[in-house]
């Protein structure tokens, strides 16, 4: 398959099950909601070492938020319920509650709930107030800027991590320019996020390493500098490979994100240095979710 002169490999992205929750962060202004959301989603690129994967999903208008202020929706993914709960308490406590004028609400509705304000309320040192509105419990925690309002729990839902595609380009400049457009297209897809810096992975990894203490290491078959040393996946003209990793709340979201992202990249075409699209998989051994490039793009 070829789109605008860009070769599409007949391969698939291999993804795995995760647990996720969506949070709604509001503040006095959108700028301060972003401050909280950026802090919460900082150092959350990969579960390999960050404990969770998280990113901003989209901006929310005052009409869309529980308290009528501008807000940001973020999605946090982890490998288990307990890991997600642990990360949630730490990140909301240290990044959202500490942001001036912020409030935090659940953006996921599910039968399975995990503590949000229920864990953070103790910061109120006995002055916290519980309030129930229309069947939902909130905590009002007195803080120095006023009060931090936080929903008691948030819904935990099954999710998928590790949807991906790789952009093989003439140079990093060519690849990065196209990938930026892809990330912009993916940001418009609800329920899908790209958790790496700028949504782009510069150092895609394979599982394992020659060193036993390393759970993941460089994906040498896609490293341009090793073309002469290893059984490479790259041809002579490819000088840079960038990967876009997508986590989503369901298969549809990842399918659409990959579809829109790849098309955004392919618009640049071969003439602008984009040569090939591939995807990362482990022979189908890692995860049950297989996103086949040809199926997605056909």
């Amino acid at each position: 398959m070829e789109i605008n002169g860009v070769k599409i490999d007949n391969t698939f992205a291999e993804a795995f099950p995760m647990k996720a929750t969506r949070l709604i962060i509001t503040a006095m202004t959108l700028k301060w909601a972003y401050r909280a959301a950026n802090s919460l989603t900082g150092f959350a690129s990969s579960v390999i070492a960050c404990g969770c994967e998280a990113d901003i999903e989209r901006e929310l208008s005052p009409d869309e938020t529980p308290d009528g202020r501008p807000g940001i929706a973020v999605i946090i993914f982890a490998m288990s319920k307990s890991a997600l709960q642990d990360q949630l308490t730490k990140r909301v406590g240290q990044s959202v509650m500490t942001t001036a004028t912020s409030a935090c609400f659940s953006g996921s509705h599910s039968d399975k709930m995990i503590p949000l304000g229920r864990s953070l309320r103790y910061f109120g040192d006995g002055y916290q107030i519980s309030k129930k509105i229309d069947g939902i419990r909130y905590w009002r925690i007195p803080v120095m800027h006023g009060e931090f309002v936080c929903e008691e729990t948030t819904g935990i839902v099954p999710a998928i991590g590790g949807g991906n595609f790789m952009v093989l380009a003439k140079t990093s400049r060519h690849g990065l320019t196209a990938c930026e457009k892809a990330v912009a297209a993916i940001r418009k897809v609800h329920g899908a996020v790209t958790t790496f810096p700028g949504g782009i992975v510069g150092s895609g990894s394979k599982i394992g390493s020659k060193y036993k203490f390393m759970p993941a290491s460089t994906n040498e078959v896609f490293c341009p500098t090793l073309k002469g040393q290893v059984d490479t996946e790259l041809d002579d003209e490819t000088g840079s490979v960038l990967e876009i990793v997508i986590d989503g709340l369901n298969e549809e979201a990842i399918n659409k994100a990959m579809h829109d992202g790849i098309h955004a990249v392919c618009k640049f075409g071969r003439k602008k240095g984009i040569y090939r699209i591939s995807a990362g998989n482990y022979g189908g051994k890692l995860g049950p979710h297989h996103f086949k490039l040809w199926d997605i793009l056909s």
Partner: protein
Amino acid sequence: MGHTLVRPLRFTLQASLKYELNISSLTPDNLKGKSKKQIAAMKLKLGRSTVTVASLFSISGSDSQKIVFSNCENKLIRIGENMTQGSIEISGNAGDYLGQNMKGGYIEVKGNCENFAGAGMTGGKIEVHGDTGDFLGAATVGNITGMNEGTIIVHGNAGSRIGDRMRRGMIVVFGNSGEYCASNMLAGTIIILGKTGAYLGFNMKRGTLVLGKKPIHLMATFRDCGLLKIEFLRLLFKQLALSCEQFKVFSDFGPEALRFAGDTSTDGMGEILILKNARNRR
């Protein structure tokens, strides 16, 4: 294909009552599955005597999940007591203990009701278009906690001791309230948009009393925390406005309020929030 119209089960009071009539058994829960004949034969307590439903009411319709009492007066007591589902509409006035210990469903009173409406309720909604008596959403006689969940809306005025010992839930009074509003309150939210009587929050331990008008008198045991933006009010008013037609008015309300914490003669963790620009409200 035509549809069969299922009419609400309507009880029309045929004569003026000399004594109080306990109609707590006429709820959607109790009447579910009963025939009109069975309902007509049900026994009710009128004062110290026992009468049948048919001797005092004419009965029409068949939908026991939508009950209508017509031509009502305030000697009809315990309407909707312990109900868990369905709706009851009262055309006229209702007596004492309306919706006492109610657990779910909806009661609408087109006129006024007497004392202890919603006392001890643990769910559902009561809406009174007229005025209510004392002890609205309070504890039932002999109990230590009042209303424990649910919503009460009063479009007129309410009497004294609103939310006495209230534990959870929400009471909204669009008119005025009597004395000792939120007395002994344990938690929950009361909103009074009209004038309030003396001894607000007497012995209040926790909970929130939101006032739309500045009170004439505030006890010295409530401590002034100043004019603040209470972020919770922003959430409360938006969610109330979204929740039902009756609360749309709250979409105009802002978060700025004078906060008074008390009653310091007891735990002192309650709060009275007097909305800024309160005088401009209805």
